[in-house]
């Protein structure tokens, strides 16, 4: 066998070329170390990391079904607690945006309400990618998916992305943060912080999907960076309900710069005049983010 790098997530996984998820997962596990149990929902990550006898996980890992990772995590945690958890083993859930925003939402709310000592990380690629790019609650306004295509009577997804961080905060979750694969040091720091918190913590990390979003695989990190630089995906941290840290920008790029490089927004640019209201609205959402989180560095 060829010598492989020492990572807690092994090479040979079957993610599509240029997938953002394994980039995030390796960093997450760099931060957790090996004294952890990871729980995942059904989804891309589960599928590409766990064919029988070809598991990529170098840490104990469990997948049960699509919508129950938060409660399976609770069960694992309580099993540890029932024996006093002498080694202080941590429990981390890593789940997709469909599992988090939609089908597993009830279970996640239950876990956050109980305040179980689980770090829940949503890898957000903004649609059901594993089943072929269908709209989820995390799909942003104006994006096309296979279940919200554009057409004469449709401009793609007609609702805005569900703000799950807000919802987590409303549960009284002590640590809530966003991250992007374009800044892995930041992600690792946040994972460590989330683990330190007693009780539930929630991190949402933007993981680009070149297949579903429609861009060249080589641009996976660049597109994630653009999402941050345009204010589309703000990077922040809440501790005990207070906004304590924001990734500042010297200047905000126009949302258009991010949108126009992805096929999922291509229809909006086919007739810019006709879609002006949608393009303006998306820009307006990013401006709101900039104001709300104080993203612009003061000069």
């Amino acid at each position, binding site marked *: 066998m060829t010598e492989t*790098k020492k990572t807690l997530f*092994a*090479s040979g996984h079957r*993610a599509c070329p240029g997938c953002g*998820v394994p980039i995030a997962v390796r960093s997450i596990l760099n931060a957790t170390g090996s004294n952890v149990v990871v729980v995942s929902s059904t989804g891309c990550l589960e599928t590409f990391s766990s064919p029988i006898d070809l598991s990529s996980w170098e840490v104990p890992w469990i997948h049960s079904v699509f919508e129950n990772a938060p409660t399976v995590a609770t069960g694992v945690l309580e099993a540890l607690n029932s024996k006093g958890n002498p080694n202080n083993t941590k429990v981390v859930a890593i789940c997709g945006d469909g599992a988090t925003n939609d089908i597993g939402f009830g279970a996640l709310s239950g876990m956050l309400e109980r305040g179980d000592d689980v770090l829940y990380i949503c890898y957000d690629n903004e649609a059901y990618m594993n089943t072929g790019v269908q709209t989820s609650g995390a799909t942003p306004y104006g994006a096309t998916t296979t279940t919200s295509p554009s057409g004469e009577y449709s401009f793609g997804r007609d609702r805005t992305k569900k703000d799950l961080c807000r919802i987590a905060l409303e549960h009284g979750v002590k640590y809530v943060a966003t991250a992007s694969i374009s800044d892995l040091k930041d992600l690792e720091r946040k994972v460590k912080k989330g683990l330190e918190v007693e009780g539930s913590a929630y991190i949402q990390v933007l993981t680009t999907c070149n297949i579903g979003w429609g861009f060249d695989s080589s641009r996976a*990190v660049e597109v994630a960076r653009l999402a941050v630089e345009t204010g589309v995906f703000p990077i922040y941290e809440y501790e005990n309900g207070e906004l304590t840290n924001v990734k500042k920008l010297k200047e905000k790029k126009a949302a258009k710069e991010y949108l126009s490089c992805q096929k999922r927004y291509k229809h909006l640019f086919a007739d810019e005049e006709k879609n002006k209201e949608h393009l303006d609205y998306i820009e307006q959402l990013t401006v709101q983010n900039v104001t709300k989180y104080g993203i612009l560095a003061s000069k």
Partner: protein
Amino acid sequence: MKLSIGGVCKAGESKNYHTGTWRTFKPVVDNDKCIKCGICERYCPDFCIDIKEDGCHVNLDYCKGCGICAHECPVKSITMEV
């Protein structure tokens, strides 16, 4: 190979599956240009890149040829070739 109880399997065995066979383009490194910054290593989704003293090494057993390394390289020391 016998099936295990409940489909439980050993850690990290995906290393036995060489995803390099998926590749069309492969990264070719010009180590004279490489500044060993480690950006390509960090962003490689298949953990193929090792930065050693003599520069950047790519493990082609797993490289799927996505091209992130070449695209992110700040000194353009990596090119994607057939």
